[in-house]
């Protein structure tokens, strides 16, 4: 209770995890809506526009919650992480400032046009509104990923005479190699979330025997996009991300795998419990050489273990980091299998009638959210004990003038607020799903 750092970290972790439940669906759905609008424009068939219209309504609710839970994230830099902001603002202020000016204005201007403007704009311009929103939300995603990438792997900066970081090379900072790999990984994962949600709604309607054609469009789009992007999350983007960690944060890689001893033919652990006090992994099931291959592209390469790093460089929550990483990888693998099987059944023409598979698809949608959350936990816990890798420790970055009790107080406030917000979100989206898709001309009837 007395340690303010604990409360600052917990508040940030809680608010960012809750916040990111929404933008991932926003960014993923934005692409799938563009696809549906595009199909509608090409084929002239109203069924695609009907499907898009349903998802745009969900998108609107989701976007609103994303916006309001995003505001606290911007403020927390200054309120809870003042020393970090003073130290790094001269660099990361650039991407955060650009996000506001280039992405947020675009998104907020086009959102109303997408949600309410279908009649006013006509099909072509409504498609452009969808396109602009997709572009804006993915641009926003890049700026925020680039900001995080600087904290993971700082480039393009110098240290000024006042001890604070200064921008030295704008393009090196913005085109940080870490950011490029991480961005594609994060974006692919966002589409996976949206694809699973879309497939789940399609499966629900199909199981209830409702909205036959719309259910099938959702299932087809969700399942195929789910397979394509689940594969992209793993390869090449996840693979690239893994190699970046091996190269720039070898100690994080060792902790992610619970690896204490160094050596060649490093094994990947399918299962096992890290035992930090005895510096070993209990009850492991291992495949030799795979970690060496993932990290460096060769089965025999030497991969360092935690024992080769000074204790004060170790990530601070190794057990949590290990499990987060393994849950992410395990779920990612299952996603490929599930969506691969579903696509096969779709191709065979049996997806819509295989009720057991529809049940699984309907219930699977929370798991991409868990995978993205544990993925970000892997990135952020792996970075510890640094707030900016190698430059500033997390303990040095919090606000010195904000007491632990004060931070705990606002955290409790957020807990209550987000509980209510989550209930409202589920209530409103649940209502939309219960209403089902609505043709353009009788929306009023559908929403009585």
């Amino acid at each position, binding site marked *: 209770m007395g340690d303010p750092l604990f409360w600052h970290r917990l508040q940030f972790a809680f608010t960012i995890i809750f916040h990111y439940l929404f933008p991932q669906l926003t960014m993923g759905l934005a692409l799938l809506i563009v696809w549906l609008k595009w199909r509608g424009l090409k084929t002239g068939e109203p069924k695609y526009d009907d499907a898009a219209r349903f998802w745009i309504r969900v998108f609107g609710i989701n976007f609103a919650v994303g*916006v309001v839970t995003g505001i606290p994230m911007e403020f927390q830099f200054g309120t809870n992480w003042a020393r970090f902001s003073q130290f790094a603002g001269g660099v990361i*202020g650039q991407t955060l*400032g650009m996000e506001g000016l280039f992405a*947020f204005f675009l998104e907020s201007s086009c959102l109303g046009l997408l949600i309410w403007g279908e009649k006013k704009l006509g099909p072509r311009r409504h498609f452009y509104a969808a396109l602009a929103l997709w572009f804006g939300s993915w641009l926003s995603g890049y700026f925020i990923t680039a900001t995080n990438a600087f904290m993971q792997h700082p480039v393009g900066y110098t240290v000024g005479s006042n001890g604070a970081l200064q921008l030295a090379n704008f393009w090196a900072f913005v085109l940080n190699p870490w950011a490029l790999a991480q961005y594609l990984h994060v974006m692919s994962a966002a589409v996976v979330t949206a694809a699973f949600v879309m497939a789940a709604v399609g499966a629900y309607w199909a199981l209830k025997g409702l909205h036959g054609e719309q259910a099938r469009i959702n299932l087809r789009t969700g399942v195929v996009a789910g397979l394509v992007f689940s594969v992209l999350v793993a390869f090449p983007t996840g693979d690239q991300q893994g190699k970046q960690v091996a190269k720039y944060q070898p100690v994080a890689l060792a902790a992610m795998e619970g690896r204490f001893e160094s050596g060649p033919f490093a094994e990947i652990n399918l299962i096992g419990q890290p035992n930090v006090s005895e510096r070993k992994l209990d009850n492991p099931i291992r495949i030799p050489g795979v970690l060496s291959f993932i990290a460096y592209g060769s089965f025999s390469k030497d991969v360092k273990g935690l024992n080769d790093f000074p204790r004060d460089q170790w990530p601070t929550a190794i057990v949590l980091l290990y499990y987060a990483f393994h849950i992410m990888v395990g779920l990612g693998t299952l996603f490929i299998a599930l969506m691969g099987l579903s696509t096969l059944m779709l191709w065979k023409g049996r997806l819509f009638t295989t009720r057991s598979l529809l049940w699984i698809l309907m219930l699977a949608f929370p798991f991409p959210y868990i995978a993205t959350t544990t993925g970000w936990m892997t990135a952020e816990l792996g970075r510890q004990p640094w707030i900016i890798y190698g430059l500033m420790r997390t303990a040095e970055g919090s606000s010195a003038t904000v007491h632990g009790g004060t931070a705990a107080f606002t955290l409790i406030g957020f807990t209550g607020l987000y509980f209510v917000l989550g209930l409202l979100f589920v209530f409103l989206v649940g209502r939309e799903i219960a209403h089902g898709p609505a043709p353009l001309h009788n929306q009023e009837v559908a929403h009585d």
Partner: protein
Amino acid sequence: MIELSALWFWIVSVMVAIYVVMDGFDFGAGVLHLFVAKTNAERRQVLAAIGPLWDGNEVWLLASGGALFLSFPKVLASGFSGFYLAMWLVVWSLMLRGISIEFRSHVQDLLWRSFWDAAFAAASIALPILLGAALGNVLRGVPLDANGYFEMPLFTSFRTTNPVGILDWYTVLVGVFALVAITAHGALFLAWKSEGPVQDRSAALAAKLWTAVAVLWVIVGIGTDAVNPQVWLALPHRPLGWLFTMMALGGLAFVFYGHAQKRYLLAFLGSGTFLLGLLAATAACVYPVMLRSSLDRALDLTALNSSAAPHGLATGLKWWILGFPVAIGYIVLLFRIHRGKASAAGEGEGY
């Protein structure tokens, strides 16, 4: 180097002023809607007027925060952590305001809608008071120490001498002034964009509110002299301060002229000019001070001693010059698309 930091001081100030003008009319509409819009159809007319605009208006706050972050990280760090609890009250109110606008239209139920109407009004009342009080704190000064940080309770004895709280008689006064001015601004916006009873009621209230604004402006001016004499002492030596004060006075004249002529767009533009001029004149008079120390003036955080390095400021300026006109362009585009009187769309087709 001095020029760059001065430029960024003005960029941040102007963006904050634009935020106040733009989101100000949303707040004003929120404060007023319970009084000027009685039926569901009337409430939806108010929401139709601000619905497509409020989110973009709010982005000005985030964009000015971003500009402050990159140009004066020390000021952001000190101010945000020092005003910790007040900052979260602002954020929570902004969140409540946002969801009350967005969620209201989704369910056609009297209780659901009444609840969000009340939430919208409560958040819209709290925000100008809090933001006004924040400006009051900047003018009065905060107990900045040698590290450039401070901590303050939410309130103490409501006196303006140390130990001072975020809320004292002066900052509350500025908060009330902000509430009245923003409400008056919103009344003119509604008089311009609405018709029928909503327009009549808004226009009638606007007359009373603007008289109150003029009176409160004088009182706040006297109060400012009491807590921070430098603001008025600086004015004679600041040509920009004169210019912006004239702008504010001119805006006020257009408010009363436009209102009397029932030319509400003219009056609304006048009120926007008034708010811009007022904030810019204040910025001109306090320059280069961004956070005033009430302990020792040598500890002030200024545009000169708190700015980021020149290369970052110059780089930021390059993309800012590209992005700023685009942002203004969005405002123009949105106002063009939604030109004319706002009318409530059919259920399920709009706010």
